[in-house]
């Protein structure tokens, strides 16, 4: 057993599972956005505003944002722990990634709920 406190869940199986589930959510969200893009001849503010005013679109977007956080955290954490062997630099990089991801999440939530 190898312990690690900076991995997303601390459990390899749970991280692995979450990364796969979040990949599906992100995949579906991407398809949804592409459909919006290609099914509308022109995309303007009014369309964008009415789209994100819909509660289901909001919920789907929040789900996609959470998935992005989880998926990226697990993925980037794996890359960092593979390649960065100096403890101080590794912790710094992990902290930057995690804080950036949390900032993006909160920022996106603020934007989403102000529309």
């Amino acid at each position: 057993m190898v312990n690690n406190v900076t991995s997303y869940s601390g459990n390899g199986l749970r991280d692995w599972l979450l990364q796969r589930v979040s990949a599906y959510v992100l995949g579906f969200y991407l398809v949804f956005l592409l459909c919006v893009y290609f099914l509308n001849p022109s995309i303007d503010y009014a369309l964008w505003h009415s789209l994100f005013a819909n509660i289901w679109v909001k919920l789907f977007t929040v789900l996609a944002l959470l998935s992005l956080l989880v998926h990226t955290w697990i993925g980037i954490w794996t890359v960092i722990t593979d390649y960065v062997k100096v403890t101080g630099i590794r912790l710094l990089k992990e902290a930057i990634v995690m804080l950036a991801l949390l900032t993006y999440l909160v920022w996106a939530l603020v934007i989403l709920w102000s529309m």
Partner: protein
Amino acid sequence: MSEAMKTVKFKIYRYDPEKDEKPYMQDFDLQVPANKDMMLLSAIIDIKDGQDDSLAIRRSCREGVCGSDGVNINGRNGLACITPLSALKQPIVIRPLPGLPVIKDLVVDMTQFFRQYEKIKPYLMNDESLPAKERLQSPADRKKLDGLYECILCACCSSSCPSFWWNPDKFIGPAGLLQAYRFVADSRDTFTQQRLGDLTDPFSVFRCRGIMNCVDVCPKGLNPTKAIGELRSLMLREQT
């Protein structure tokens, strides 16, 4: 009448930490019988005998059973004793197994490799009372061990795995994980739950990214990636 000969070119990694500041590649030309094929190990032994007896390599059985002479041949890990010269492009570049510390020339320190093997408890564990004679196994259950028990621990797979290069102290590696599954799959072993439980951390199993270098190089034709997949499926079944 003397036998017709041909020249085979080699580039061999040399490093003696007591003498050399840095590793270097040394060229060798070897005369071999033109109308016969020979194994790479025999050629290396000929070079050692006839040209430079300081060249270090591990070997024992010479027939792909002991797993001692795993080396990197033209960029691909394999056993020198079962690799025919005819299958190799010249100059034949021979290096030690990658990712493991070099002791001398082609001899590597396998401590980390065997430490990972030790972690998976490579022996039968059974807490049921001892039978009078022996633990029996049905032919069907015995068949489940085919493709698993044949591993000779030559380390060709683990030392071709980038995840093992980066985390040889944390990731069990393909060889160890193949054996982990070998004991999980054994009907005579009653510690499946504990064995799986010991492997659920983010490194031991889950550093495998499934690139299948291990499957590509295994000289015994085994499939560690599949065994790792089986371990993951069993974990999913037991722990979700």
